[in-house]
């Protein structure tokens, strides 16, 4: 351990009611790219905050190059050579790149000199960045470069990166990885936190796995499969949902000629979307976010109405029906955004159960809410879907993403829908919760309901769908049987629609 740059020994930090870190020990050698793995709530952020001097450990110690390291604040941590790039950037849009960097430095040099140093560092590490550009005009990837260069200017010995790729395009990820590898070659240690197991396998040479605040394993991620890594994180064998391709039943939902103007200037126009959904079937709809997914969900849930015939449930036109009329008819939905759309963050789970459960669970009589019935219904959802919460009166926003998503999906499934439409059902959800949600969707289909699953996660769609289609710029490709389909073929479906779109340049400008 003597050659380690940072050695962590027995760090413990408890918050009221939860031990965030329990006797955590590991070491990072100079030049090592060290992954920190764990589910939401495993204690990764607490650990990183202790290293960066934002949180004081209750017990245990850290050593930097063998000398005790007890940073009282981030300033002290930076003094010892620790730099950190946060998941959420702290930049001022109205200022230019060098002004933003100067603001974050402990002793900024004169602006002209700083601009020169920014240019030097950005060239040296292959991170193109113009110091005179306004941050407001930069892409997410470029903003991250500002943060990274701010760190690099301090000549860090350890760079901590928290979920750095969640905002990047694949091309930007590639550039980032090149930079990190170069830094590593020069002897900078990197502590890399991510959910994306394939990335960790590609980038990191060592991984420490945290579960419920404890170190449960160390490994070389290159020698493990993504599945093995996930199972180390979760601590149980991951259950792959089983799927029998059943004979589909009668047509439940018919969508035909569904065209919808975007709700706002950032929205996407739905163009002549058409599909059929049969009983017992899961229809997967692939596509990169922003290609009409939100609009399609709104058109199906009833938040946006269309011409009556565009949406038919068991032959009955419901295009003009609002959300509650559709619920009464058996068409239920779970939108992508949990906080503020599928659920009201500041309201209790009981109130959130009432939010969509009113009609089918008969939670009101003559307009008066039967709170005890709503509480019972919320309790049933919590029980049936293993939602981890102190109780039904907890605010929805206090739940972790995975738990709230289980609640949101469970709330709809327990209302026995005939058709359920879900958008990104496992987005930002940890592996075990995601598996539970997928299984629940399959079980629902097995009971004879139809499920429309809109998702960006192609693996997920391949796992649960009977038929797969793709949404691109508001157009939907004709669904194809999922059995035997490859990721490349789904990619082609997305591309195929794209070609069609290029044939109408005047619409592209509209």
């Amino acid at each position, binding site marked *: 351990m003597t050659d380690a740059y940072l050695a962590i020994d027995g760090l413990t930090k408890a918050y009221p009611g939860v031990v965030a870190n329990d006797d955590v020990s590991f070491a990072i050698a100079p030049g090592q790219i060290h992954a920190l793995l764990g589910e939401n709530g495993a204690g990764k952020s607490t650990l990183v905050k202790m290293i960066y001097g934002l949180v004081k450990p209750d017990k245990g110690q850290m050593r930097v190059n063998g000398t005790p390291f007890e940073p009282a604040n981030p300033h002290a941590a930076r003094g010892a050579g620790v730099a950190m790039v946060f998941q959420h*950037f702290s930049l001022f849009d109205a200022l230019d790149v060098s002004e933003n960097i100067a603001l974050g430095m402990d002793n900024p040099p004169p602006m002209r000199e700083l601009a020169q140093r920014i240019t030097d560092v950005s060239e040296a590490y292959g991170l193109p960045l113009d110091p005179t550009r306004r941050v407001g005009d930069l892409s997410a990837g470029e903003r991250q470069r500002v943060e990274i260069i701010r760190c690099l200017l301090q000549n860090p010995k350890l760079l901590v990166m928290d979920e750095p790729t969640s905002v990047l395009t694949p091309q930007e990820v590639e550039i980032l990885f090149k930079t990190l590898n170069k830094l590593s070659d020069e002897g900078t240690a990197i502590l890399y936190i991510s959910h994306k197991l394939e990335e960790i396998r590609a980038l990191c040479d060592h991984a420490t796995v945290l579960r419920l605040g404890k170190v449960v394993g160390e490994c070389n991620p290159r020698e493990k499969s993504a599945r093995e890594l996930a199972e180390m994180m979760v601590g149980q064998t991951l259950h792959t949902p089983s799927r029998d391709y059943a004979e589909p039943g009668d047509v439940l939902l018919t969508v035909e000629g569904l065209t919808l103007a975007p709700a706002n200037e950032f929205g996407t126009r739905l163009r002549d979307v058409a599909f059929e959904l049969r009983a017992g079937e899961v229809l997967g709809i692939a596509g990169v976010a922003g290609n009409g997914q939100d609009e399609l969900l709104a058109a199906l849930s009833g938040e946006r109405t269309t011409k009556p015939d565009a949406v038919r449930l068991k032959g009955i036109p419901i295009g003009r029906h609002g959300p509650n009329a559709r619920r009464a008819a058996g068409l239920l939905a779970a939108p992508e955004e949990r906080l503020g759309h*599928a659920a009201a963050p500041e309201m209790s789970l009981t109130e959130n159960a009432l939010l969509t459960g009113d009609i089918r669970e008969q939670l009101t009589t003559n307009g008066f809410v039967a709170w005890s019935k709503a509480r019972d219904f919320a309790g049933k959802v919590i029980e049936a879907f293993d939602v981890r919460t102190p109780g039904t009166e907890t605010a929805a926003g206090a739940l972790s993403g995975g738990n709230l998503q289980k609640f949101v999906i469970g709330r709809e499934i327990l209302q026995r829908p005939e058709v359920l439409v879900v958008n990104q059902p496992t987005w930002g959800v940890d592996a075990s919760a995601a598996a539970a949600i997928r299984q629940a969707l399959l079980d629902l289909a097995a009971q004879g309901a139809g499920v429309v699953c809109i998702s960006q996660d192609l693996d997920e769609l391949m796992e649960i769908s009977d038929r797969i289609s793709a949404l691109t710029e508001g157009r939907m490709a004709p669904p194809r049987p999922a059995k035997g389909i490859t990721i490349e073929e789904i990619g082609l479906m997305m591309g195929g629609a794209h070609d069609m779109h290029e044939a109408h340049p005047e619409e592209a400008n509209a």
Partner: protein
Amino acid sequence: MSLIRLEKRPAPSRLLSGLTPILAVIATMFAGGIMFAALGFSPFEAIRIIFWDPLFDPQFGPYSRPQLLVKAGPLILIATGLALGFRAGIWNIGAEGQYIMGAIVGAGAGLAFYPSESFLIFPFMVLAGAFGGWAWAMIPAILKTRFGTNEILVSLMLVYVAENILASVSSGLLRNPDGMGFPGSRNLRRDFPAASNTEIFADTGMHWGVVAAFIAVILAYVLMSRHKMGFSIRLAGEAPRAARFAGVSPARLIIFCLGTAGALAGLAGLFEVSGPAGQISIDFNTGYGFTAIIVAFLGRLHPVGILLAGLLMALTYIGGELAQLMLGMPAAAIQLFQGMLLFFLLAMDVFANYRVRIGTPEIAK
């Protein structure tokens, strides 16, 4: 480099949200005291006259105590209605106009039957008053639902329209024919018993408007805590997108909230014109509709809180008048004092929702 930063709390502190009204009152007394001192008045005496003497002074108490309910009644009635909209994110700033229109339509409905003595006249006036306020509030409501206009601006501008209508009818349509040409309607309380809103118990200030205020508080409480409409109102205020997903129609909500607030403000106007004020006159309105906004927020938009806040605000009104009388304090100083109360309440709210941290600025949450 160290800055004072505000860090959002994961959930608003319940203790502090309960305490902020009290802290705001204390801060207002403190800052108000400094202002009074700067104006050359003894701060302790001024604050005693405003908060204590109206209730307990042997000389003024018997006169002031009934005034408490007389002033608090309309404030509570209006604020209860406004709070419904405020909870849903619908900002009706024009209660003063709805109050005036309720008074005009209600008084006009009664005066049309002068000098009948039918006991039906007063109930009819109550309905007419509520209708007047409701109809005036429907203007911003319909403009908002149809054309997406801003209800803040429209409702506020309509206050000035209503004031001009008030000036017009008090010297025209509703002018007392026996009034020697002076502007102002017949005095309902004095000259028209069937249309007068009399004190229910002598010397308590308890008139029908106060009864209506108490009933409104109870109904609003039941609506907000037990009824689906109250749930929809809260949902729309906290998460508008979730409300739409839950099937709440924004247009219906706007019509309901503005309509209810308008009707209650109209009722307040009718009870005022037929009781304490007695007649339609150019200076009939005294700003209850605006003060009720403060009352609604001071009461944390909660019906019971509004009840208490209305009484407190009424106290500052009465105490303020007493201070003008006793100390010769300018009326503007009293208004400033009331404004401070809202300012401090909103400022204190920040502490319920945010934690103050002193530290380096680059730390993200």
